[in-house]
């Protein structure tokens, strides 16, 4: 019987006689750091169909998925909306093992989920008549979607039968396995037109599930966050919550967003000369500088995304040089610099593409960028799987 005392978080497989069969690496291959923090607890574990394992991570409010030998992915965040948790505890599956039930301890509820096995797609090209300003899984189908807006006239993908509208519109393109599948109109905040300078580019919470996305709108010098809710079952879209951000342009420009400190609030990334700072929710009265970045920033901040394990990746881009990505941990320290082989201007990010670093292939987000070769229309490309 094997027992490795120095290993801090581990899952082991034994047979009924107590013989060790194998153990699961609770590390993501693409990440140096253990995906389960010392502060968190792998509370309970269950078997889903197909030989997958699902575990609840108590203090990090996430649910982990494993193959019999490896960490696969995770979802969840702190909060009380669906797919968010406050200390997930015991979990189980039904006898058919196609439904997962999770005790959400401090939310005093049980949440039910199902899972679908997906293959990664290779992305593709598509043409839109409008600006691409956000990405994420808006429709909750597990594929990266992009958000497009059009000011004053209809985007060209909308059906001609629709009545002409003069107000600004925004729509979500559902990018599913190389194709644009469907378009969902977004209800914009009533008194706010969709902004001409929409700079924040990231979904907030539960983006691996696609249930929550946050949009930041600006009007003049005011910013407003709308938490945008997509019900994956009812396909209902509505703005769930709106919040005014007490921000002035002296503080810099909002460049990206994400939940860096895992408090369930959208943190905003601001740049000001040679520093990058985080404006922290829920009231955005607190700001922290991101440390660990090079003295001369490797370009403009283009996007940020959360890849399922603990750190967010902040992407910089300068001119036509390849983009640079940095892992930003929950203490706002940038750790590893990655070269991302995308030289066109990145507009949004979602999902994963493989990136080679030190002869090792790791996974990064897919990038939506503008292809300048086509005039009049804007051609965007989604790089890499999902």
């Amino acid at each position, binding site marked *: 019987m094997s027992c490795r005392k120095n290993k801090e978080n581990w899952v082991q*497989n034994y047979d009924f006689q107590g013989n060790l069969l*194998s153990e699961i690496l609770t590390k993501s291959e693409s990440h140096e750091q253990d995906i389960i923090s010392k502060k968190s*607890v792998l509370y309970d*574990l269950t078997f889903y169909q197909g030989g997958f394992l699902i575990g609840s991570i108590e203090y990090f409010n996430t649910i982990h998925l494993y193959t019999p030998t490896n960490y696969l992915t995770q979802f969840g965040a702190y909060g009380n909306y669906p797919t968010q948790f406050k200390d997930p505890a015991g979990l*189980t599956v039904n006898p058919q093992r196609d439904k997962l039930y999770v005790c959400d301890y401090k939310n005093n*509820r049980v949440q039910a989920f199902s899972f679908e096995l997906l293959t*990664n797609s290779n992305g593709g090209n598509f043409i839109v008549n409008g600006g691409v300003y956000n990405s994420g899984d808006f429709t*909750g189908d597990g594929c990266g979607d992009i958000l497009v807006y059009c000011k004053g006239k209809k985007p060209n993908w909308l059906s001609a039968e629709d009545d002409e509208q003069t107000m600004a519109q925004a729509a979500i393109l559902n990018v599913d396995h190389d194709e644009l599948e469907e378009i969902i109109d977004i209800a914009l905040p009533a008194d706010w037109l969709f902004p001409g300078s929409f700079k924040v580019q990231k979904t907030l919470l539960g983006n691996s599930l696609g249930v929550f996305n946050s949009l930041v709108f600006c009007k003049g010098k005011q910013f407003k966050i709308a938490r945008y809710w997509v019900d994956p079952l009812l396909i209902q879209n509505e703005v769930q919550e709106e919040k005014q951000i007490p921000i002035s342009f002296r503080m810099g420009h909002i460049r990206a967003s994400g939940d860096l400190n895992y408090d369930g609030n959208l943190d905003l990334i601001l740049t000001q000369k040679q520093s990058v700072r985080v404006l922290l929710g829920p009231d955005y009265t607190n700001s922290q500088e991101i440390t660990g970045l090079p003295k001369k920033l490797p370009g403009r901040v283009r996007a940020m995304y959360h890849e399922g394990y603990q750190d967010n990746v902040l992407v910089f881009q300068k001119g036509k040089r390849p983009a640079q990505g940095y892992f930003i941990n929950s203490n706002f320290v940038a750790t590893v610099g990655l070269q991302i082989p995308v030289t066109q201007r990145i507009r949004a990010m979602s999902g994963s593409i493989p990136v080679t670093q030190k002869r090792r292939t790791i996974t990064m987000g897919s990038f939506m960028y503008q292809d300048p070769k086509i005039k009049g229309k804007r051609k965007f490309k989604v790089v890499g799987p999902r």
Partner: protein
Amino acid sequence: MKMLFLLMGLFLLGSSEGVLAKSLTLKPKFLFQFGKQGSNKGEFVGPKDVAIDLSDRIYVLDEKRIQVFVSNGIYLAEFSSTNFVRPYALAIGRLGNIYVTDIEANCVHVFNKDFQYMQKFGSTGNGEGELYCPRQIAIGESENVYVVDWHNERVVKFNSVGGFLTNFVFPGSDIWGLAVNPEGVGR
């Protein structure tokens, strides 16, 4: 802090290994939720564990009671026992018996499928069949009961009526939970 999860049983079939190629992923989908804070029917005070019987009924353990729901989350029934001190986790066997670990009473409470209290087994200590802070529980082959005996750094195996069978000792471990692979049962 060291943590150990035990998965008893044959966990992997050759065929399923082939499916688990690196390019595949599981896409989660939220289905529904039920419960809110409170002590009325269908309400919870800190739900700790959930189990499902062969009729797809959902059993949820909170501070001191077990509530039963039909598969869509509609409240059906509830039961409890005055023997509960600090119930921690529960599991349901194929015959419908409900096993509940008690982390303070150092025992396992057993209810039958009609929610009647049948017996408890285990007592405080580190001897055979004794428990010290039992945590997660799972039912394995032949209705055998596996209990994480946290403070004793071991997993204790009982038969379905609480007879001691064997210990799996992991010195220096910090075991929180275990799961039994249904595909491994009976092998």
